[in-house]
């Protein structure tokens, strides 16, 4: 009888502990719906204007590593995507396809980042770019 009582008490502690464990940190999924359909038509057209950023684009096309990356970006119309993040996320695989393996590669830091900076100054409305690199 005494052993049964002792066993019962010990198991009660264990079960109480198990109950306590169920009160741990919540790990529930967060779902964020995003509208990925938007486009800022005319961004690339603006960038290619001589008074805008055509000089930088020509420099890029003259660079054997930048040229294929930019061709892909043109083909995918990455600059016409709505937000800067979308533009970059579209452009990075193009760069990777062109053999650029780091975000700090000079092709990116010189030409592509330069295009973003230029776009902020010269085509902020057409490209939906503000000074802070922010979308809508």
């Amino acid at each position: 009888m005494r052993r049964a009582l002792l066993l019962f008490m010990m198991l009660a502690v264990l079960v109480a502990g198990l109950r306590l464990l169920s009160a741990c940190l919540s790990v529930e999924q967060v779902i964020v719906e995003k509208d990925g359909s938007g486009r800022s038509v005319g961004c690339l057209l603006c960038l290619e204007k001589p008074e805008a950023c055509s000089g930088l684009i020509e420099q890029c096309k003259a660079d054997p590593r930048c040229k294929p990356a930019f061709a892909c970006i043109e083909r995918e119309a990455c600059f016409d995507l709505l937000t800067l993040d979308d533009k970059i996320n579209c452009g990075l695989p193009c760069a990777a396809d062109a053999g650029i393996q780091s975000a700090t590669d000079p092709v990116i830091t010189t030409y592509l980042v330069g295009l973003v900076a230029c776009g902020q100054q010269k085509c902020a409305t057409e490209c939906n770019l503000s000074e802070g690199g922010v979308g809508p």
Partner: protein
Amino acid sequence: MSTCTRLLAMLAAAATTALASAPARADDADTSELEGLLNENVVVAASKTSEVGTTAPATVTTVTAEDLRRYGMRTLAEAIDFLSLGAVTSDSQHVVDIGARGVLIPNDNGDHMLLLVNGHTQNEPLFGRASFGRGASIPLEMVDHIEVILGPGSVLYGSNAMLGVINVVTKRAKDWSGVHAVGELEPGKSWRGLVGAGVTFPTPLADDPADLTLGVEYYKHDGPAFFYPYRYGGIDGSTAKPYRYARNGPENGYWGGVAKNGYYTRLPSGFLRLGLGDFELNVQLSSFDHSAPYRSRYTKIFQDFDDPDSHERDRRIGIDLTHRARLGTIARLTSRAYADGWDWLADVNASEKAACLGAGDSSVNTCSIQGRGRSRWAGLELRTDLDWLQTSQLVTTLGIDGRLREIKSKVDFSDFDTGRPLQSTQGFIDRNDTLLGAYLQQTILPTRWLSFNLGARLDKETRFDGVVSPRFAAAVRAWHGGTLKGSYAEAFRSPAYAETDYTSTVQLPAGTLAPERVRSVEVSFEQKLGAQRLLFGVFRSWWQDIVENHILSVPEQREAVSRGELGLATFGVGQFRNVSQIDNYGLNGTFEGTAGKEQQLHYGLNATAAIARRDEVGAPSVPLAVAPQIFGNARVAYDIPGDWPTVALATHYVGKRPIDRAYDGGWPSGTYAPAQLETRATVSGPLPLLRGLSYRLTATYALADHGPYVVGAQQVYEGGPEPSPSLLPLDTFRTSIGLQYDFLP
């Protein structure tokens, strides 16, 4: 059958065996009397039964409570570094890495070493994590001894015991009787307070008095405020401006400065051990909240510099209920039911636009990356020891260990300022699984001078086919005091769920991962001469299928996109794979003993020299990053007779070793961390005027002021004026003062 139903069934089985069996006459965990009789270290964890260390089927160091006190040890990691043979730790501030015999895998969360507290497994299943630093959360004043068992140990314990097994055994009431209060201060850096008690008291529930030890501890540290050299990180592609590395910092691209806020620990913990009749109950509780001010390769790719809100917290509760009983004259049955809960919180704030680019919204000023994880597991282990001749000469151990586990984790991205979620949860894991292990061990002592230990364990879990881990060991007492020992053992590690199941936009599913395996052979010779002990051993081990996060090449990435496994591919897409092998061999030795009329002089020396090289198909063979190939420690202490203090000096040495980014950082120079020699002087003893009050003073000096971890924004070399990386700064001089009051009724 649901998890809950299965758990109840297991508990019922435990209850049945406990009620059906007779009380145990001998307690196999109560080793102190036996140890005193033999004047020899007694270990439990090597073969799950009490045995002398000399003939245990592995190389074992026993660190006693007296050693911990005498040499001023404050953490498990310090005890390992200063006092053990063959094991070594390395503190990156984010995590304490542990290695043995030349093998150390940085940032593995300690999942290649099995950590036990009174036989209870500490490694959890999401990361395989076990903490060997402060996070171990065991008040050292409550520790009776620490068993450091080198070499593969899966034969009795299953996964994670690749480097070895460390078993922390806590005191019983008779060894910690009374009420105790401990306070310890590192001026300007940390303090610690512990209140505990050890009592025995009669109870109507059992013939023998209940045996209770419990302690509650709080540890807090802030700083020191290290200076991290400024490094230029470049232009943020999202803003076309230099990076910003702090929420209120300038966009000037410079990372570094004096970190005054982001290096801290808050650690409340508690431990209880209750012996009641044939039962023993162990309960552990802790909440380990800590922060390091720097970004690193593995743990914090993005993190604001010196941000106190970027922190990590592990909370743990563990309950272990053991019942020991005799079944007839030859059999002993040990039933153990256990339940554990662990949760993990990691908040990382980054003010680089690139940090939240992956979340699809770099418009926020500061992106908050929130990792959350939880694992819970419960199980039952039944073990029978059959002492066929009742002389301990022929003992068969049969055991079965069943475990149910639940594992969950996720990573969220939100705007730090508003809390707005930026993206749906990444890396969501929600798994339940079952582990079943069965083991058999046979010890044979045909003569007084010869012993064998043979065993094997089969482990099967939901994700993998069965893994068999054998061990064969033999010891020959060749002549008086001399023992020659040899063993062969295998061990494995089931990849953690964070490796097999974690996926994100930049992390491909792991696909088929095999458990890591290690095979090891070792031979050692031990000679005892009075109170002196000399040990010399050689070892070799072969590790295979080491799991690493392989960064995809451009063609691999392109293929993954074409297969539809990746959506928007970007740089640095990883996939956990069985990537590499390790070939490891070396030698180690110990000399320790006592001298003097009353054995007042204590001394010891441990040394290890090992070669460990990582091999990967198509890559050159290289030494392991962060892993020292030469390391060891030495100590000497003198107990001045009477009420005078004990003075002690302990030192540990770690040879130079490759930094964590030695092979993938592209650094032209500075790829080795300097050798480290750390020395601690300790004075301890009773205060002369107040009975029950004692003190401990320590001063620690480290020669090297940098460790083997690259810190800061420049993790890799991409040109520029600095050809060497910025390495982790270390605290070179520390002092502490501790007071302990023991109220003995």
